[in-house]
């Protein structure tokens, strides 16, 4: 916790008598990229709005840069892009960036050209931002967040509306920010495959409650290759695995499927033993999980 730049403890938020966030805790370490994963209405944007200072939590503690005091001063070291990018449609990309430069007091005017180049909007000239495509607006929003060289960036669905090339560019940009400038990123996205390639940590949230915090390494372990097995009798199958095959590293998923994490090369032997025990195998193959499978499993468990 010593190097945590964002710490939330037991955050709750009610809006119009409906609790949208319940006892949410999260710690984001300096220089990490933390992915906030959850379905629509899970409370991701609410968390980000509390961080941005749009409203107070109903209960709980928030610390920025290790301190619960002077949160507004801490926000001056952060940048946010929450929901759709906030841009002045009547101004050009350059003018939007200039506005942010004045507001954030960034001294170097050349920074605007750097950012325009970086987000691929250098050739938009006098085109007003309200004439931009969704992807261009998204890139401008990211540029406006990047301009003051923040220590923490909070990005809500930053690749929304981007084409595949744009998604890759944004991913590379965020990686570069983390690796070269040491920026800490809290990011949410529906594209879990993108997050799995980008994030160092994940926080799974559903119905305003935290389901699990885990690091990328922990995710890899949890999503490791396994034998997926379905039979007509799961309880008997588990007993056969333990008694006849001495397999103990397995997991029963929703009472329907067994995932075996050891002796992956002995699939034929396992199959024969189960069949000899009178079980009917309906599924037997080697597979691995990805973040999406893991997330669906976790959210599914919570709903069950």
């Amino acid at each position, binding site marked *: 916790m010593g190097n945590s730049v964002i710490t939330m403890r037991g955050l709750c938020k009610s*809006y119009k008598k409906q609790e949208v966030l319940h006892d949410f805790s999260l710690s984001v370490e300096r220089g990490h990229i933390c992915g906030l994963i959850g379905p629509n*209405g899970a409370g991701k*944007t*609410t968390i980000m*709005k509390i961080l*941005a*200072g*749009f*409203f*107070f939590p109903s209960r709980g503690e928030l610390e920025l840069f290790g301190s619960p005091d002077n*949160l*507004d*001063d*801490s*926000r*001056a070291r*952060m*940048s*946010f892009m929450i*929901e759709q990018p*906030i*841009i*002045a*449609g*009547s*101004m050009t990309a350059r*003018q939007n960036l*200039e*506005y*942010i430069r*004045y*507001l*954030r*007091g960034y001294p170097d005017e050349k920074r605007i050209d750097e950012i325009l180049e970086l987000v691929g909007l250098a050739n938009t000239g006098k085109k007003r931002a309200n004439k931009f495509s969704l992807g261009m607006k998204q890139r401008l929003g990211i540029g*406006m967040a990047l301009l003051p060289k923040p220590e923490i960036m909070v990005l809500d669905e930053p690749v929304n509306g981007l084409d595949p090339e744009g998604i890759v560019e944004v991913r590379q940009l965020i990686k570069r920010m983390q690796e070269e400038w040491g920026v800490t990123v809290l990011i949410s996205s529906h594209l879990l495959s993108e997050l799995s390639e980008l994030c160092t940590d994940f926080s799974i949230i559903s119905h305003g409650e935290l389901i699990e915090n885990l690091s990328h390494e922990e995710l890899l372990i949890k999503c490791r290759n396994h034998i997926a097995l379905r039979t007509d009798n799961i309880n008997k199958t588990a007993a056969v695995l333990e008694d006849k095959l001495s397999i103990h590293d397995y997991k029963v998923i929703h009472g329907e499927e067994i995932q075996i994490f050891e002796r992956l090369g002995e699939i034929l032997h396992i199959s024969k033993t189960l069949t000899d025990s009178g079980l009917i195998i309906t599924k037997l193959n080697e597979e691995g999980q990805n973040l999406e499978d893991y997330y669906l499993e976790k959210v599914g468990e919570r709903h069950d």
Partner: protein
Amino acid sequence: MTNIIRSQWFLCKKRWFTILLCIIFPLIAMFFALSLEGSVRSFASGAMIAMLGIMLIPILVVTYSYAERTQLYEIMAGFSPHQILLGKAIVYLLFTMLYLIVISAEVLCFDHSAETLLRVALYWIICIRAVLSVVLLSPLLKSGSAAPTFSFMLLIAFDDPNNVADSPLSVFYAAQNMMLGAELTGALIIRIIVSAVVACVIYYLVGYFTLKKKFDLEPYQLT
């Protein structure tokens, strides 16, 4: 606060043509009002149009910033409510002062009697109050035009300055502007000054606590 001032100045500069029109048209209107009628009553009607002109500058910028949600950047950048309100007030009061200097010079060219000077001084107070109502109430109203619309709408039923002077409406700046065309009494002068001071304190407190307590800062429904 310097950053707020610079950013607001930048936003104003980007709308320079509209702002120029807001300034020129009332000046012309005031000129015709004064030259055609040449009475104190004409000062009041010209002053009303001129006041709308000066209010249009903050109304435009504030309305755009709420419609496009760019005012949220001020909150995300960590500025205190005091910095946000005072920074904006300084920018728009600067515009108001410059504008009032020109208007006052125009009026005094026609008539520079002591009574006209007093009317002009009271007009300054009313205009400053009107501009501050737009700027300081904007966090709550999320629109630049709501406060002046409310104030002017109340006047629709009261088009006689003598009636307005005796009604509770006389504490509103739009009504006071109309009353400038009537005879100036000590009570009226005190009412204009005291109500301006009280109203500006109230505007500031409303704006401050809206930002401080984060009363629904976004113009859109939260998800």
